[in-house]
């Protein structure tokens, strides 16, 4: 170790305001070019930002509240967020967020559309991102004739809990040398909604 420099305070290296800027806003104050405000104005700013964000993100927040544990907190959240989400839908504010979620490959409420972890050496099973009712699955005997060059293929499916358990199971199966496991889970399914 060496003689480290002592911890430094925040270094302000912003640009100072010009004389014209100062004269045009005599009530304003600056810190290294950045405007400073009184605490009441900062409080109003913070509350406004949070309020606008709450409206913009209301549909996702509503989904999160719906899957949260039953209790006062959930009830209050739903009471607040349902009207906000309805308002946001009416004025189509939430299109911004929905568009972003679609671009990121998520459902409209922000939940991922599927989480596929491919394993090496395996021909990836072509699972649709939205499982269609009535799709049949083929039952195979996974270990018959399995070898390192032709490993048995096993599909691990589940929700977020399945993802947690499936990772360890995938590792254990891989260590056999004759099994290749694919993990396909879906987080935030909403299946555990308490209501």
């Amino acid at each position, binding site marked *: *170790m*060496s*003689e*480290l420099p*002592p*911890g*430094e*305070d*925040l*270094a*302000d*290296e*912003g*640009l100072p305001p010009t004389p014209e*800027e100062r004269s045009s806003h005599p009530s304003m*104050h600056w*810190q*290294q*070019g*950045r*405007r*400073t*405000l*009184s*605490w009441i*104005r*900062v*409080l109003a*700013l913070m*509350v*406004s*930002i*949070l309020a*606008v*964000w709450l409206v*913009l*993100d209301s549909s*996702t927040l509503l989904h*999160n509240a719906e899957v949260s544990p039953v209790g006062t907190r959930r009830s209050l959240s739903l009471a607040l967020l349902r009207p906000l989400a309805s308002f946001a839908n009416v004025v189509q504010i939430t299109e*911004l*967020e929905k568009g*972003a*979620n679609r671009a990121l490959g998520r459902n409209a409420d*922000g*939940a991922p559309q599927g989480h596929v*972890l*491919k*394993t*090496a*050496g395996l021909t990836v099973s072509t699972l649709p991102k939205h499982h269609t009712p009535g799709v049949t699955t083929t039952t195979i005997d996974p270990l018959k004739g399995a070898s390192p060059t032709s490993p048995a293929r096993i599909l691990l499916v589940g929700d977020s809990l399945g993802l947690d358990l499936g*990772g*360890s199971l*995938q*590792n*254990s199966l*891989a*260590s056999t040398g004759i099994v290749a*496991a694919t993990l396909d889970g879906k*987080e*935030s399914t909403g299946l555990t909604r308490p209501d």
Partner: protein
Amino acid sequence: MLFPTIDFAIFFVLAFALAWALSPFPAPWKLSLLGLSYFFYGWWDPKFVLLIVAETALAHVGARLMHRSEDPKHRKAILIGTIAVLLGILGYFKYAGFLTVNIDNLARSLGLGNLLPLIQPTLPVAISFFTFMAISYVIDIYHRQLEPATPLDLAVYLAFFPHLVAGPIVRGGELLPQIRTRRDARHIDYSRAGQLILRGMFKKVVVSSYLASHIVDPVFTSPKSHSALDALFAAWGYAVQIYCDFSGYTDIAIGLALLLGIRFPVNFDQPYRAVNLQDFWRRWHITLSRWLRDYLYIPLGGNRGSESFVARNILITMILGGLWHGANWTFLIWGGLHGVGQVVGHIRRTRRAAAGIIEPEPTRWRHILSVFWTFQFVCLAWIFFRATSVHNAFAVVSQIFTGWSVTSTLISPLMILTIASVIALQQLPARLGDRLVVEISNTRLWIQVGVGALLLLAITTLGPTGVAPFIYYRF
């Protein structure tokens, strides 16, 4: 209560209003900050508050007794006693389980059976941080670098909620004067605070979470299921993840404190542009490394002595620094790796200096190679830091070397871009973007509301569902 959550946002808005409304009245202001901090800490478990109160009382009594005594031996005895109790509390909660398990494992291997009962106390959040702050306070009192604070001031210093959970480890000399001084309620540097908070949230909620879920966690959970390239990117990805997670938290903490009129020291200074390990530790977790330097390395003797003596001091400091992070052999190995690396660097520097060899001005390529190899070494050490066990760490390391016949399945262009961008940004000037903050702060307030809300929406949209705890809050 984690920082980037709605619960905390509501809490902070109320805390901000209360603190500033009471700021003209010093005692009520301090009491409000203390009450808010204890409430914040008690959100995890109300019993934890008793612990921090106890450590505050202990530090206060120790400091007062030392200050009143003129006898050097008496003062030293009080210092040692106070530190021993503080470390004893930390040791019990953090290391008792680790020690008993390992002693019993050794005893069983020798055929002696289980010698000790299993002890697994619940680890209080942030105990390492406020214990270290309490120790630094009493040591500074001993050296007469500080006057003892009032109980209220000391309690606020140790419990102040922006730094409570995961630092920065602020010195008494940095925070106590600010607690005693009245802040200016008319001129809050809100835009700088907003920049820090939003930047921190982006690093934590978006970047860190993305890398954790898409590469780091899958590879470390089952190393053998993934290719060498996946394992390599998991190591690089974790380096970026932990940087974004921890520095993101620190940015938020500094920003929140700034909104309350308190200035914290910088804790990260672009660590992945370090040219060697010594430089890395000047840039990573700066407040911890200066704590280790001032309160451990220098008292051990520092770099005043023979090569082996200095090497011993470096190794002890880095290994204990590793163990501070957690009770696991992996943290010990992580600290040991950094210790060995720094010893090698120190010996090389001192021998070259003794031989009269003048270090040439580094060329551009020499500089790039130094940064590159330092980063690779740091990433190798991070594997042990992240791994759940020594076996897990070696599984990841071995997969990097042996898994080249396996097809990579996790790496995506976005992931490469994310990792490369974070590392590349660290090679650029630190205050890039400040001009933009100046411009935005000088626009109309309704525009700033819109910009702030949209940035917040972008962060929450790009981030995953739910918020994972900060990595360092476990320490």
